[in-house]
Protein backbone atom coordinates (compact mmCIF):
# COMPACT_ATOMS: atom_id res chain seq x y z
CA UNK A 1 0.00 0.00 0.00
CA UNK A 2 2.72 2.36 0.98
CA UNK A 3 4.68 1.52 -2.17
CA UNK A 4 1.71 2.29 -4.34
CA UNK A 5 1.35 5.66 -2.69
CA UNK A 6 4.94 6.49 -3.50
CA UNK A 7 4.28 5.88 -7.16
CA UNK A 8 1.06 7.76 -7.31
CA UNK A 9 1.90 10.93 -5.50
CA UNK A 10 4.80 13.24 -5.99
CA UNK A 11 5.44 15.85 -3.38
CA UNK A 12 7.84 18.03 -5.32
CA UNK A 13 9.16 17.52 -8.81
CA UNK A 14 8.12 17.02 -12.41
CA UNK A 15 5.69 14.69 -14.15
CA UNK A 16 6.16 14.13 -17.87
CA UNK A 17 3.01 12.60 -19.29
CA UNK A 18 1.79 11.53 -22.74
CA UNK A 19 5.12 10.24 -23.92
CA UNK A 20 4.62 7.79 -26.81
CA UNK A 21 5.27 4.23 -25.61
CA UNK A 22 8.73 3.30 -26.80
CA UNK A 23 10.10 6.82 -26.50
CA UNK A 24 10.23 6.83 -22.71
CA UNK A 25 13.83 5.78 -22.50
CA UNK A 26 14.86 8.42 -25.01
CA UNK A 27 13.40 11.02 -22.65
CA UNK A 28 15.44 9.39 -19.87
CA UNK A 29 18.52 9.89 -22.06
CA UNK A 30 17.72 13.50 -22.87
CA UNK A 31 17.32 14.38 -19.18
CA UNK A 32 20.36 12.31 -18.15
CA UNK A 33 18.29 10.49 -15.54
CA UNK A 34 20.63 7.48 -15.42
CA UNK A 35 22.73 9.09 -12.78
CA UNK A 36 19.98 10.94 -10.94
CA UNK A 37 19.92 9.89 -7.32
CA UNK A 38 16.43 10.85 -6.11
CA UNK A 39 13.30 8.82 -6.71
CA UNK A 40 12.20 8.34 -10.31
CA UNK A 41 9.10 6.45 -11.40
CA UNK A 42 8.98 5.30 -14.99
CA UNK A 43 5.83 3.82 -16.45
CA UNK A 44 5.55 2.44 -19.93
CA UNK A 45 2.86 0.82 -22.10
CA UNK A 46 0.15 2.28 -19.87
CA UNK A 47 -3.39 2.54 -21.19
CA UNK A 48 -4.28 5.95 -22.51
CA UNK A 49 -7.59 7.15 -23.91
CA UNK A 50 -5.82 9.73 -26.02
CA UNK A 51 -2.85 7.74 -27.31
CA UNK A 52 -3.80 4.07 -26.87
CA UNK A 53 -0.55 3.35 -25.10
CA UNK A 54 1.71 5.82 -23.37
CA UNK A 55 4.62 6.32 -21.04
CA UNK A 56 5.03 8.55 -18.02
CA UNK A 57 8.02 9.70 -15.96
CA UNK A 58 7.86 11.17 -12.47
CA UNK A 59 10.99 12.75 -11.07
CA UNK A 60 11.28 13.83 -7.44
CA UNK A 61 12.86 17.13 -6.55
CA UNK A 62 13.79 18.08 -10.00
CA UNK A 63 12.27 20.87 -12.08
CA UNK A 64 12.59 20.91 -15.82
CA UNK A 65 13.26 24.24 -17.43
CA UNK A 66 11.92 25.31 -20.77
CA UNK A 67 15.04 24.43 -22.74
CA UNK A 68 14.97 20.88 -21.42
CA UNK A 69 11.26 20.61 -22.07
CA UNK A 70 11.77 21.62 -25.65
CA UNK A 71 14.39 18.96 -26.18
CA UNK A 72 11.77 16.42 -25.14
CA UNK A 73 9.67 17.62 -28.07
CA UNK A 74 12.17 15.87 -30.35
CA UNK A 75 10.93 12.43 -29.30
CA UNK A 76 7.59 13.21 -27.67
CA UNK A 77 5.91 16.14 -29.44
CA UNK A 78 2.63 15.61 -27.51
CA UNK A 79 4.24 15.42 -24.09
CA UNK A 80 2.72 17.38 -21.23
CA UNK A 81 4.84 18.55 -18.35
CA UNK A 82 3.44 19.16 -14.86
CA UNK A 83 5.50 20.88 -12.23
CA UNK A 84 4.49 19.74 -8.75
CA UNK A 85 5.07 21.57 -5.49
CA UNK A 86 3.69 20.26 -2.25
CA UNK A 87 1.46 17.72 -4.09
CA UNK A 88 -0.11 20.49 -6.18
CA UNK A 89 0.31 21.06 -9.88
CA UNK A 90 1.68 24.59 -9.98
CA UNK A 91 2.50 24.73 -13.66
CA UNK A 92 1.43 22.88 -16.84
CA UNK A 93 3.51 23.09 -19.91
CA UNK A 94 3.37 21.76 -23.44
CA UNK A 95 6.59 21.17 -25.29
CA UNK A 96 7.60 23.02 -28.45
CA UNK A 97 10.46 22.10 -30.68
CA UNK A 98 13.22 24.74 -30.58
CA UNK A 99 14.61 26.18 -33.82
CA UNK A 100 18.07 24.96 -33.03
CA UNK A 101 19.16 21.80 -31.21
CA UNK A 102 22.63 21.67 -29.72
CA UNK A 103 24.64 18.65 -28.62
CA UNK A 104 21.95 16.09 -27.87
CA UNK A 105 21.41 14.71 -31.37
CA UNK A 106 24.02 12.56 -33.10
CA UNK A 107 24.64 13.21 -36.83
CA UNK A 108 24.23 9.93 -38.77
CA UNK A 109 26.67 10.99 -41.52
CA UNK A 110 30.01 9.25 -40.80
CA UNK A 111 31.82 11.86 -42.88
CA UNK A 112 30.39 14.76 -40.86
CA UNK A 113 32.98 16.71 -38.89
CA UNK A 114 31.01 16.14 -35.68
CA UNK A 115 31.91 12.44 -36.00
CA UNK A 116 35.56 13.07 -36.78
CA UNK A 117 36.71 16.03 -34.68
CA UNK A 118 35.70 17.15 -31.19
CA UNK A 119 32.91 19.37 -32.55
CA UNK A 120 29.50 19.54 -30.88
CA UNK A 121 26.49 18.92 -33.08
CA UNK A 122 24.10 21.69 -34.06
CA UNK A 123 20.88 21.03 -35.97
CA UNK A 124 18.44 23.53 -37.45
CA UNK A 125 14.81 22.43 -37.26
CA UNK A 126 12.87 22.68 -40.54
CA UNK A 127 9.22 21.87 -41.06
CA UNK A 128 8.28 20.80 -44.57
CA UNK A 129 4.99 21.52 -46.29
CA UNK A 130 3.91 17.89 -45.77
CA UNK A 131 4.37 18.26 -42.01
CA UNK A 132 7.59 16.28 -41.89
CA UNK A 133 10.04 17.71 -39.38
CA UNK A 134 13.65 17.61 -40.52
CA UNK A 135 16.82 18.28 -38.61
CA UNK A 136 19.38 20.00 -40.82
CA UNK A 137 22.98 19.47 -39.74
CA UNK A 138 24.68 22.85 -39.39
CA UNK A 139 28.01 21.32 -40.52
CA UNK A 140 27.53 18.64 -43.18
CA UNK A 141 24.14 20.14 -44.23
CA UNK A 142 22.44 16.75 -44.48
CA UNK A 143 18.80 16.40 -43.43
CA UNK A 144 17.66 13.90 -40.84
CA UNK A 145 14.05 12.94 -40.18
CA UNK A 146 13.15 13.93 -36.66
CA UNK A 147 11.84 10.48 -35.72
CA UNK A 148 15.14 8.91 -36.79
CA UNK A 149 17.21 11.18 -34.55
CA UNK A 150 19.63 9.32 -32.34
CA UNK A 151 20.08 11.00 -28.98
CA UNK A 152 23.63 11.25 -27.68
Amino acid at each position, binding site marked *: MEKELKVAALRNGTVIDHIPAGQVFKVVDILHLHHYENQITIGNNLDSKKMGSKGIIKISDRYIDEAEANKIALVAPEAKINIIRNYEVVEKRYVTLPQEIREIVHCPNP*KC*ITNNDPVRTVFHVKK*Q*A*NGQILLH*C*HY*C*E*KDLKCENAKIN
Partner: protein
Amino acid sequence: MKNSLVSISDYGKDEILEILDLAAHFEANPNQKVLEGKVIATLFFEPSTRTRLSFETAVNRLGGRVIGFSDAATSSSSKGESLNDTIKIVSNYADVIVMRHYIEGAARYASEITDTPIVNAGDGSNQHPSQTLLDLYSIRKTQGTLENLDLTMVGDLKYGRTVHSLIHAMYHFHPTFHFIAPDELKMPEEYKLFCKEHNIPYTEDAILEGNFSKTDILYMTRVQKERFQDLMEYERVKDVYCLHRDMLEGTKDTMRILHPLPRVNEIDMDVDTSEKAYYFQQAQNGLYVRQAILTKVLGLSI
Protein backbone atom coordinates in the same frame (compact mmCIF):
# COMPACT_ATOMS: atom_id res chain seq x y z
CA MET B 1 33.52 34.75 -39.45
CA LYS B 2 30.93 36.78 -41.30
CA ASN B 3 32.91 37.25 -44.50
CA SER B 4 33.53 33.59 -45.12
CA LEU B 5 32.04 31.73 -48.08
CA VAL B 6 31.29 28.18 -46.96
CA SER B 7 28.01 27.33 -48.65
CA ILE B 8 26.16 28.85 -51.60
CA SER B 9 23.25 29.50 -49.22
CA ASP B 10 25.50 31.98 -47.35
CA TYR B 11 24.83 34.34 -50.25
CA GLY B 12 21.46 35.83 -51.09
CA LYS B 13 20.44 36.96 -54.54
CA ASP B 14 22.13 40.34 -54.26
CA GLU B 15 25.43 38.88 -53.14
CA ILE B 16 25.37 36.31 -55.95
CA LEU B 17 24.82 39.08 -58.48
CA GLU B 18 27.55 41.19 -56.87
CA ILE B 19 30.03 38.31 -57.34
CA LEU B 20 28.97 37.83 -60.98
CA ASP B 21 29.40 41.55 -61.72
CA LEU B 22 32.80 41.56 -60.04
CA ALA B 23 33.80 38.49 -62.05
CA ALA B 24 32.80 40.25 -65.27
CA HIS B 25 35.03 43.13 -64.23
CA PHE B 26 37.96 40.73 -63.75
CA GLU B 27 37.28 38.98 -67.04
CA ALA B 28 37.72 42.33 -68.79
CA ASN B 29 41.06 42.74 -67.03
CA PRO B 30 42.32 39.71 -65.08
CA ASN B 31 45.63 41.32 -64.14
CA GLN B 32 45.13 43.89 -61.39
CA LYS B 33 47.08 44.56 -58.21
CA VAL B 34 44.02 44.20 -56.00
CA LEU B 35 45.63 41.64 -53.66
CA GLU B 36 49.05 43.29 -53.47
CA GLY B 37 50.56 42.75 -50.03
CA LYS B 38 48.04 40.00 -49.18
CA VAL B 39 48.91 36.41 -48.34
CA ILE B 40 46.37 33.73 -49.30
CA ALA B 41 46.66 30.25 -47.82
CA THR B 42 45.48 27.28 -49.91
CA LEU B 43 45.07 24.33 -47.56
CA PHE B 44 44.22 21.23 -49.58
CA PHE B 45 43.72 18.40 -47.10
CA GLU B 46 42.50 16.45 -50.12
CA PRO B 47 44.20 16.90 -53.49
CA SER B 48 42.31 18.74 -56.23
CA THR B 49 44.72 20.04 -58.79
CA ARG B 50 42.31 21.94 -61.00
CA THR B 51 40.57 23.79 -58.18
CA ARG B 52 43.86 24.64 -56.50
CA LEU B 53 45.47 25.91 -59.70
CA SER B 54 42.41 28.02 -60.41
CA PHE B 55 42.52 29.68 -56.97
CA GLU B 56 46.28 30.13 -57.06
CA THR B 57 46.16 31.64 -60.54
CA ALA B 58 43.44 34.00 -59.31
CA VAL B 59 45.72 35.15 -56.48
CA ASN B 60 48.79 35.48 -58.67
CA ARG B 61 47.01 37.52 -61.32
CA LEU B 62 45.81 39.90 -58.62
CA GLY B 63 49.30 40.40 -57.22
CA GLY B 64 48.87 38.39 -53.99
CA ARG B 65 51.13 35.66 -52.61
CA VAL B 66 50.22 32.04 -51.92
CA ILE B 67 51.24 29.75 -49.08
CA GLY B 68 49.87 26.29 -48.34
CA PHE B 69 49.94 22.62 -49.21
CA SER B 70 48.38 20.50 -51.92
CA ASP B 71 48.00 17.24 -50.02
CA ALA B 72 47.45 16.45 -46.33
CA ALA B 73 50.34 13.96 -46.48
CA THR B 74 52.77 16.87 -46.73
CA SER B 75 51.17 18.90 -43.93
CA SER B 76 51.35 18.57 -40.19
CA SER B 77 47.90 16.94 -40.15
CA SER B 78 49.80 13.79 -41.15
CA LYS B 79 51.49 14.06 -37.73
CA GLY B 80 48.08 14.09 -36.10
CA GLU B 81 47.54 17.83 -35.75
CA SER B 82 43.86 18.67 -35.41
CA LEU B 83 42.03 20.84 -37.93
CA ASN B 84 41.45 23.33 -35.12
CA ASP B 85 45.18 23.79 -34.54
CA THR B 86 46.10 23.96 -38.23
CA ILE B 87 43.49 26.67 -38.85
CA LYS B 88 44.56 28.69 -35.79
CA ILE B 89 48.23 28.58 -36.81
CA VAL B 90 47.62 29.48 -40.45
CA SER B 91 45.31 32.31 -39.36
CA ASN B 92 48.38 33.96 -37.87
CA TYR B 93 49.97 34.14 -41.30
CA ALA B 94 47.30 34.51 -43.95
CA ASP B 95 44.64 37.09 -44.84
CA VAL B 96 42.31 34.47 -46.36
CA ILE B 97 42.24 30.69 -46.05
CA VAL B 98 41.05 28.70 -49.06
CA MET B 99 40.50 25.13 -47.92
CA ARG B 100 39.45 21.80 -49.32
CA HIS B 101 38.76 18.90 -46.99
CA TYR B 102 37.35 15.38 -47.32
CA ILE B 103 35.36 15.82 -44.07
CA GLU B 104 31.92 17.38 -44.54
CA GLY B 105 31.41 20.54 -42.50
CA ALA B 106 35.16 21.14 -42.08
CA ALA B 107 34.98 24.58 -43.68
CA ARG B 108 31.96 25.64 -41.60
CA TYR B 109 33.76 24.61 -38.45
CA ALA B 110 36.94 26.41 -39.54
CA SER B 111 34.93 29.59 -40.12
CA GLU B 112 33.75 29.43 -36.50
CA ILE B 113 37.16 29.21 -34.90
CA THR B 114 38.98 32.01 -36.69
CA ASP B 115 38.39 35.62 -37.71
CA THR B 116 40.28 35.05 -40.95
CA PRO B 117 37.81 34.62 -43.84
CA ILE B 118 37.43 31.01 -45.00
CA VAL B 119 36.65 30.12 -48.60
CA ASN B 120 35.37 26.57 -48.98
CA ALA B 121 36.95 24.89 -52.00
CA GLY B 122 34.99 21.68 -51.41
CA ASP B 123 34.15 19.70 -48.26
CA GLY B 124 33.52 16.06 -49.16
CA SER B 125 30.24 15.66 -51.01
CA ASN B 126 28.78 18.73 -49.30
CA GLN B 127 29.51 22.19 -50.72
CA HIS B 128 31.72 23.77 -53.37
CA PRO B 129 30.37 27.30 -53.72
CA SER B 130 32.98 28.63 -56.16
CA GLN B 131 31.88 25.89 -58.57
CA THR B 132 28.25 26.95 -58.21
CA LEU B 133 29.12 30.61 -58.75
CA LEU B 134 31.15 29.83 -61.86
CA ASP B 135 28.21 27.79 -63.16
CA LEU B 136 25.94 30.79 -62.59
CA TYR B 137 28.45 33.09 -64.24
CA SER B 138 28.63 30.80 -67.27
CA ILE B 139 24.85 30.59 -67.49
CA ARG B 140 24.41 34.36 -67.31
CA LYS B 141 27.20 34.99 -69.77
CA THR B 142 25.84 32.60 -72.40
CA GLN B 143 22.15 33.45 -71.95
CA GLY B 144 22.44 37.14 -71.08
CA THR B 145 20.28 36.60 -67.99
CA LEU B 146 19.62 34.17 -65.16
CA GLU B 147 15.85 34.77 -65.19
CA ASN B 148 13.24 32.31 -66.50
CA LEU B 149 15.67 29.78 -67.95
CA ASP B 150 15.04 26.15 -68.79
CA LEU B 151 17.74 23.87 -67.38
CA THR B 152 18.15 20.19 -68.13
CA MET B 153 20.36 18.28 -65.70
CA VAL B 154 21.70 14.92 -66.80
CA GLY B 155 23.58 12.06 -65.16
CA ASP B 156 24.26 11.50 -61.49
CA LEU B 157 21.60 13.64 -59.86
CA LYS B 158 21.64 11.65 -56.63
CA TYR B 159 25.19 12.28 -55.45
CA GLY B 160 26.15 15.20 -57.69
CA ARG B 161 26.66 18.12 -55.34
CA THR B 162 27.00 20.60 -58.22
CA VAL B 163 23.44 20.00 -59.39
CA HIS B 164 22.05 20.22 -55.86
CA SER B 165 23.79 23.53 -55.20
CA LEU B 166 22.68 24.83 -58.58
CA ILE B 167 19.03 24.15 -57.69
CA HIS B 168 19.42 26.14 -54.48
CA ALA B 169 21.17 29.01 -56.26
CA MET B 170 18.85 29.17 -59.29
CA TYR B 171 15.74 29.36 -57.13
CA HIS B 172 16.17 33.14 -56.96
CA PHE B 173 15.68 33.36 -60.74
CA HIS B 174 12.47 31.47 -61.65
CA PRO B 175 13.95 28.45 -63.42
CA THR B 176 12.32 25.36 -64.94
CA PHE B 177 14.20 22.10 -64.40
CA HIS B 178 14.31 18.78 -66.23
CA PHE B 179 16.02 15.99 -64.38
CA ILE B 180 17.32 13.13 -66.53
CA ALA B 181 18.92 10.27 -64.63
CA PRO B 182 18.86 6.48 -64.34
CA ASP B 183 16.69 5.13 -61.51
CA GLU B 184 19.73 4.47 -59.31
CA LEU B 185 20.85 8.09 -59.56
CA LYS B 186 17.55 9.98 -59.49
CA MET B 187 17.21 13.41 -57.93
CA PRO B 188 16.64 12.91 -54.18
CA GLU B 189 13.21 13.62 -52.75
CA GLU B 190 14.41 16.59 -50.65
CA TYR B 191 15.38 18.62 -53.74
CA LYS B 192 12.11 17.84 -55.48
CA LEU B 193 10.28 18.94 -52.34
CA PHE B 194 12.37 22.12 -52.36
CA CYS B 195 11.16 22.79 -55.92
CA LYS B 196 7.53 22.12 -54.97
CA GLU B 197 7.70 24.40 -51.94
CA HIS B 198 9.09 27.22 -54.07
CA ASN B 199 6.78 26.64 -57.05
CA ILE B 200 9.65 25.69 -59.33
CA PRO B 201 8.34 23.48 -62.16
CA TYR B 202 10.29 20.31 -62.93
CA THR B 203 10.01 17.10 -64.92
CA GLU B 204 11.78 13.78 -64.54
CA ASP B 205 12.93 11.41 -67.23
CA ALA B 206 15.09 8.32 -67.46
CA ILE B 207 16.25 8.64 -71.05
CA LEU B 208 18.38 11.28 -72.73
CA GLU B 209 17.04 11.50 -76.24
CA GLY B 210 15.49 14.38 -78.13
CA ASN B 211 13.80 15.80 -75.04
CA PHE B 212 15.65 19.04 -74.70
CA SER B 213 14.47 21.16 -77.63
CA LYS B 214 13.36 23.96 -75.27
CA THR B 215 16.43 23.74 -73.06
CA ASP B 216 18.65 26.78 -72.55
CA ILE B 217 21.31 25.03 -70.46
CA LEU B 218 22.16 21.34 -70.73
CA TYR B 219 24.07 20.54 -67.55
CA MET B 220 25.88 17.22 -67.90
CA THR B 221 27.46 15.34 -64.98
CA ARG B 222 29.60 12.28 -64.72
CA VAL B 223 27.99 8.91 -64.09
CA GLN B 224 30.52 7.33 -61.77
CA LYS B 225 31.06 3.61 -61.96
CA GLU B 226 31.63 3.30 -58.20
CA ARG B 227 28.07 4.48 -57.49
CA PHE B 228 26.62 1.26 -58.90
CA GLN B 229 26.17 -1.91 -56.92
CA ASP B 230 25.34 -3.80 -60.08
CA LEU B 231 28.07 -3.29 -62.66
CA MET B 232 25.90 -4.70 -65.45
CA GLU B 233 23.49 -1.90 -64.70
CA TYR B 234 26.35 0.56 -65.09
CA GLU B 235 27.30 -0.90 -68.47
CA ARG B 236 23.69 -0.53 -69.55
CA VAL B 237 23.25 3.10 -68.52
CA LYS B 238 26.66 4.55 -69.29
CA ASP B 239 25.98 4.80 -73.02
CA VAL B 240 22.40 5.93 -72.57
CA TYR B 241 23.74 9.04 -70.87
CA CYS B 242 26.34 9.80 -73.49
CA LEU B 243 25.71 12.98 -75.43
CA HIS B 244 26.52 12.80 -79.15
CA ARG B 245 26.66 15.61 -81.65
CA ASP B 246 23.68 14.36 -83.65
CA MET B 247 21.52 14.69 -80.52
CA LEU B 248 22.00 18.47 -80.66
CA GLU B 249 19.86 18.76 -83.78
CA GLY B 250 16.68 20.68 -83.13
CA THR B 251 17.99 22.33 -79.99
CA LYS B 252 17.97 26.10 -79.55
CA ASP B 253 20.79 28.03 -81.22
CA THR B 254 21.51 29.68 -77.90
CA MET B 255 21.57 26.39 -75.96
CA ARG B 256 24.88 25.72 -74.22
CA ILE B 257 26.30 22.54 -72.68
CA LEU B 258 27.95 22.80 -69.28
CA HIS B 259 29.86 20.16 -67.33
CA PRO B 260 31.73 20.63 -64.04
CA LEU B 261 34.55 18.37 -65.40
CA PRO B 262 36.35 16.05 -65.40
CA ARG B 263 34.39 14.35 -68.12
CA VAL B 264 34.79 10.64 -68.83
CA ASN B 265 32.50 9.35 -71.54
CA GLU B 266 29.25 11.21 -70.98
CA ILE B 267 30.02 13.77 -73.68
CA ASP B 268 31.40 12.36 -76.89
CA MET B 269 34.45 14.23 -78.16
CA ASP B 270 32.60 15.01 -81.38
CA VAL B 271 30.54 17.49 -79.32
CA ASP B 272 33.65 19.51 -78.41
CA THR B 273 33.78 21.28 -81.76
CA SER B 274 30.12 22.31 -81.58
CA GLU B 275 29.60 25.97 -80.74
CA LYS B 276 27.13 24.72 -78.12
CA ALA B 277 29.92 23.08 -76.12
CA TYR B 278 30.83 25.49 -73.36
CA TYR B 279 32.53 23.35 -70.69
CA PHE B 280 36.09 24.46 -71.34
CA GLN B 281 35.21 28.17 -71.24
CA GLN B 282 33.14 27.37 -68.14
CA ALA B 283 36.30 26.17 -66.39
CA GLN B 284 38.11 29.34 -67.45
CA ASN B 285 35.31 31.45 -65.99
CA GLY B 286 36.20 29.86 -62.66
CA LEU B 287 39.32 32.01 -62.58
CA TYR B 288 37.36 35.30 -62.74
CA VAL B 289 34.77 34.09 -60.27
CA ARG B 290 37.49 33.09 -57.79
CA GLN B 291 39.14 36.49 -58.20
CA ALA B 292 35.77 38.02 -57.35
CA ILE B 293 35.29 35.77 -54.30
CA LEU B 294 38.72 36.61 -52.86
CA THR B 295 38.10 40.31 -53.38
CA LYS B 296 34.69 40.12 -51.72
CA VAL B 297 35.67 38.10 -48.65
CA LEU B 298 38.46 40.59 -47.99
CA GLY B 299 36.00 43.46 -48.31
CA LEU B 300 38.21 45.16 -50.91
CA SER B 301 36.81 47.75 -53.25
CA ILE B 302 37.93 47.88 -56.85
